[in-house]
């Protein structure tokens, strides 16, 4: 019987093609706009490391004080002094420090043209902590950090560029004029957002080229190629004084596996900051944060405002389209009051009428969904109009989005039909028959 209703529905759609086309377009445009903007929003607000995001934390210490910090929030990165103190205390099961570096890379041929390579200075824990997958070799041990070794891990993309994709572990590479030993080649791994370096970056850049041993970079006085934010009087001259300054540029991460570990670490941070106050380094009470990955992403405003605004606008748009569909369905159903009267007189129950008209709406939903799917596919290519190339690439039409598009269309059409179908079911058969 349901199949028959659906068939009736489809036949009725053909009866006034103008009205049907209008409804299809309303649902199609509404759902397409929502899906396109949702696909971007989903991509930028996704959990970048789902199985560990609640165990990874970014410790923050207010080294700027209430008069110079960001509306009471500590800066999103650490200065050298605090960063090194946290590393030495080693209160977490794993811990790392990160800062972006830019080095030139020279090919193997003597006459090759140099190219720029961007990467991160990290410590050995970086690789197991973030579960970086390896193609060849592995990361370095934390003992290598202490030896301040010239170790480097290349990414698959950079290994392809420099070594044609061959196993380069054990080979040497010259970066920024210095030689490094390749200890590993990572698989393609570029979490979006790139949570571990999101402070001062938009978080959606292309994959980095390498990860290099942090202490080595510090020994070579290699500057951060990323953000560096300072407060107060900066009277430093030279690298060593600069390290002691109030400039924040190192991004710390710690791995804390249980809730109580996190609580203990929070206490450690508080007592560290309080100690600094006692020592006279900070002129204010302890102000620390220990946020996990998703909370840190929120604090650092990783989701671009364009993404949120366009999603909200698209959803409002969809609501208007649905209001429109309600009106059109009402017109369409009530036009057939006579027909409904006859069916009711011949014994159809209100429930049957209700079901029939809901199913007719569902068939509109399916048709609208198919149109919406086409529009979504077309619109995906327009995403780069609104967003940076890197973010636009993240939005794509996958199977789950196709299913969601169709589901939302049908549900929306059925929801829009609740009232019109109810009105149809309320038609008084006697009244209709009499007027005929």
């Amino acid at each position, binding site marked *: 019987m349901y199949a028959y209703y659906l068939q009736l529905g489809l036949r009725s759609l053909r009866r006034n093609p*103008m*009205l049907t086309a*209008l409804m299809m*377009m*309303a649902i199609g*445009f509404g759902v397409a*706009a929502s899906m396109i903007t949702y696909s971007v929003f989903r991509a930028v607000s996704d959990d970048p490391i789902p199985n560990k995001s609640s165990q990874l934390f970014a410790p923050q210490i207010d080294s700027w004080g209430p*008069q*110079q910090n960001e509306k009471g929030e500590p800066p999103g990165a650490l200065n050298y002094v605090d960063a090194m103190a946290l590393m030495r205390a080693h209160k977490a099961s794993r811990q790392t420090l990160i800062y972006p570096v*830019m*080095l*030139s890379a020279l090919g193997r041929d003597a006459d090759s*043209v*140099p*190219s*720029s390579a961007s990467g991160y200075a990290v410590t050995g824990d970086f690789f197991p902590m973030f579960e970086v997958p390896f193609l060849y070799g592995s990361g370095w041990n934390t003992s290598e950090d202490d030896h301040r070794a010239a170790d480097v891990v290349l990414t698959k993309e950079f290994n392809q560029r420099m070594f044609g994709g061959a196993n380069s572990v054990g080979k040497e590479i010259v970066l*920024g*004029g*210095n030689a490094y030993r390749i200890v590993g080649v990572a698989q393609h791994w570029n979490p979006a957002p790139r949570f571990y370096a999101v402070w001062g970056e938009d978080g959606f850049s292309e994959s980095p080229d390498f990860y290099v041993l942090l202490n080595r970079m510090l020994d070579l006085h290699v*500057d951060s*190629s990323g953000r*560096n934010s*300072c407060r107060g*009087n*900066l*009277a*430093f*001259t*030279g690298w060593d*004084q*600069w390290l002691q300054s109030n400039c924040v540029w190192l991004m710390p991460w710690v791995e804390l596996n249980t809730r109580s570990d996190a609580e203990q670490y929070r206490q450690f941070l508080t007592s560290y900051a309080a100690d600094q106050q006692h020592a006279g380094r900070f002129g204010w009470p302890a102000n620390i944060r220990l946020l996990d990955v998703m909370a840190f992403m929120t604090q650092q405003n990783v989701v671009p*405002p*364009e993404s*949120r*605004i*366009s999603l909200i*606008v*698209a959803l*409002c*748009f969809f*609501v*208007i*389209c649905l*209001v*429109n569909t*309600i*009106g*059109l369905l*009402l*017109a*369409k159903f*009530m*036009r057939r009051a006579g027909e409904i009267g006859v069916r009711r007189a011949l014994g159809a129950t209100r429930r049957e009428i209700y079901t029939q008209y809901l199913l007719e709406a569902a068939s509109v939903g399916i048709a609208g969904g198919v149109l919406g799917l086409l529009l979504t596919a077309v619109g995906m290519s327009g995403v780069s*109009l*609104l*967003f*940076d190339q890197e973010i636009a690439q993240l939005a794509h039409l996958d199977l789950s989005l196709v299913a969601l598009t169709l589901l939302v269309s049908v549900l929306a059409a059925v929801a829009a039909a609740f*009232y019109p179908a109810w*009105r149809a079911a309320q038609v008084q058969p006697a009244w209709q028959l009499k007027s*005929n």
Partner: protein
Amino acid sequence: MQIKPILAAMRRHKAGTILIGFQIALTLAIVCNALFIIHERIARVSRPSGVNESNLFVITSDWADNSSNDNIDAQIKADLTALHQLGSVQDATSLNSFPLHGTGWDNFIRMTPDQIHMTTDASVFLADEHTLGTLGVKLIAGRNFTPDEVQSLTIQDMKGWPAIIVSKDLAKVLFPNGDALGKQIYASNNNTPSTIVGITDTLQSHMMDSDDNAFAYNAVLVPMREVGTGYVHYLIRARPGQLEAAMRDVPKALIAQNRMRIFDPDDGEMTFAQVRAKAYERDYGMAILMGIVSAVLLAITAAGIVGLTSFWVGQRRRQIGIRRALGATRNDILSYFMTENMLIGVAGVVVGTLLAIGINLWMVTHYDVARLSGTYLLVGAVVLLLLGQGAVLAPALRASRVPPVEATRSV
């Protein structure tokens, strides 16, 4: 035209009336805000940079060997000498950042050494004696830098900045009385004063975030060459009409100077027009998106009105016929439907105006959006009422053509 019978008839089809009214209200709310966002973005895009943007381009050179700051300093000097000798080049300068660049160095500006909160924020452009000439920015007071003033600087070595040039807008913020020239401010990071030796005409900063709108025209020019960052931006003004030639000559000349350098294949060399397009790409995108949304919304609302009114006309053919038989003219029928739509439209516009203000207030608190101006509400309301009248015209004309004989037909 009598309004009472129309209101009475409306009560007979409440649902449809409410739906149309509601749709008009929602559309007005969204379209007003969308148009307002478009207006704001367009205003941002069309603000002047102060730079004479034609015949200007940027080339960014990364250094392959970054180990010696002294070597890089010497190389930058040699590069600039070579660039000035090119026939297609009118002027050239080295900079750490430039207007519209988006990234760069900003410093908090203070009036006294012990001031904790900044007076304002400003771009720091590490410039030389050719910077103003290359950018095409005029000095409106004071003097330009002299060649001997220009020194080298690394980010780890904070020297004092005895002489600086500031933009007109920054001078006005710091010294509202207009006597900035010769005054001292604290612009450098160490606690030494800087004397304002020159004031430029309008000059935009590198800052492009909407958070930084208040500082968008604050710029401090410091006679320094930055070394140790691994790259340098050269801004080059080509001789009139020779932009293409200069953009071909410059990379060649630089590589002839030293081939151990890197030009990014994507954005290593950009005309200033490209710099501008990149800087405002999101604003254009947002404006286009809002434009499309508004257009489609208006179309869908119009279509909805046509659909529902057509249904009403169909439903009331007999009644129309009776009215016509009793002496109503075609015009009466036409104006009946037009008035009905106008009444619904006015109600929808009233609700929509409140809704639009509500949405705008929400956006003001959550995003960097200004208060909606009344003009937009007024224009939006008029547009929607006209749209409603336009949409209802076709069905209403059809209704007016219903013959009186319809009264006698039973179906």
